């Protein structure tokens, strides 16, 4: 059974989002998603400063087997990307919720969409289907 931390929010497209103490939001893909994809060998991330809409396609993770698009969980601006993944995409497999984070965002002040994200319980139900 894959790990679904309690302190995160989730999307139907298997991203997770963490609200940090400074108000920024960190984004990654779930343990369930990385396990379905298998060994990751390539990650394409959004650009720094790029504005993103809710559910906007903003990156790609590719395993040996398949490519999977990344969608922004919320509306906001890209503050930072996880450069380590360029050389070590496998961090997403080994540590999807910590070292394998994808990018950080500054949420829009209005209608960032945070409140519409899935709770851990809701995501767990969805992932089981």
């Amino acid at each position, binding site marked *: 059974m894959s790990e679904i931390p309690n302190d995160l929010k989730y999307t139907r497209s298997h991203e997770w989002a963490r609200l940090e103490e400074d108000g920024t939001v960190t984004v990654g893909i779930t343990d369930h998603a990385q396990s379905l994809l298998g060994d990751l060998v*390539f990650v394409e991330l959004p650009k720094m400063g790029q504005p993103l809409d809710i559910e906007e396609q903003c990156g790609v993770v*590719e395993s*040996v*087997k398949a490519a999977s698009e990344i969608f922004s969980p919320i509306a906001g601006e890209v503050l930072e990307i996880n450069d380590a993944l360029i050389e070590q995409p496998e961090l997403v497999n080994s540590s999807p919720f910590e070292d394998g984070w994808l990018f950080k965002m500054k949420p829009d002040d209005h209608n960032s969409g945070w409140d519409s994200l899935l709770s851990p319980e809701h995501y767990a139900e969805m992932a089981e289907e």
Partner: protein
Amino acid sequence: MNQKTPLYDQHRQAHAKMVDFGGWDMPLHYGSQLQEHHQVRQNAGMFDVSHMTLLDLTGPYATDFLRHLLANDVGRLRTPGKALYSCLLNPQGGVIDDLIVYFQTPEQFRMVVNAATRDKDLAWITQQAQHFKVEVALRDDLAMLALQGPRARELTLPQLPTSLQTAAASLTPFQACWEGDFFIGRTGYTGEDGFEIMLPNSQVIALWQQLLAIGILPIGLGARDTLRLEAGMSLYGNDLDEDHSPLESGLEWTVAWQPADRDFIGKTALQLQKNQHAHPILVGIVLTEKGILRTHQPLLIDGNEQGYITSGSFSPTLGISIGLARLPKQTAYPTVTVDIRGKKLPVKVVKPPFVRQGQACIDLSS
């Protein structure tokens, strides 16, 4: 309901991720496709390939039949056990399937064809065989294991039936020996040395467990695909299909034009295509920048779409992405780019294989 090989429960016990492959429940990987790939390149791995279709072709005219049926020439085989790789063509020269045929006697051959093409292969071969009074027997009572890797033969040999060990140890590449229904070929689909073993379904679980116990790890179909791609070997349905001839699929070397008086199905169409000098060819491609080549991605020459990738993936051995691609025949390819989700990236055209026996075969420096 998918078909299951006799090793299905063994795969589940080894925590395989099972997937549908041509109507069969097969192991994709047992944890990490990348580690399994390296295991075969560096040591030894074991594949359940019991989904493949095994046929025995028997009759006084079996040799004549196969010389008519196949684009490669079994008439070249003199030593019992010698194997031949060939395309099975339709009259238009399109590839119905690619296969391996083992010469046992001039009246007895064993053939291994793909799982996904089983029904159409059987229909075609059986229909053609009628004219030659050749009996085509489906061997669903046999399972098949592939043992591949630099250490595969030395590790496997002591586990084989005692009476076959000496013969198996002295096999040359692409040769087989057998005793009853236990059949051992020095063949494979990875670019490494090794064996492919056919044996009764009732005996395969014991051999599998025996080989596991001495440290040969199970390898899934995921790694099988990256291994064969690195070795520059074709996958039916990707690099080969009925709409393309062997000349368009990198397999002209498997077409036996000589002796000229041999007629085989598809020969007229192939000769016409060869004489017109206008057919596309299959090449190897390498992406030197970051990104992954995928099957069906378009290729551009001087900015114009002129071809496509037939097989693309990440090469675990080389650490970059590689592929096979169909392009117009040119003397050189200075300006080929791939379109990956709208992004145009340069690719280098190379001659496969990319990797053989653990070593890179292409120059990545320039």
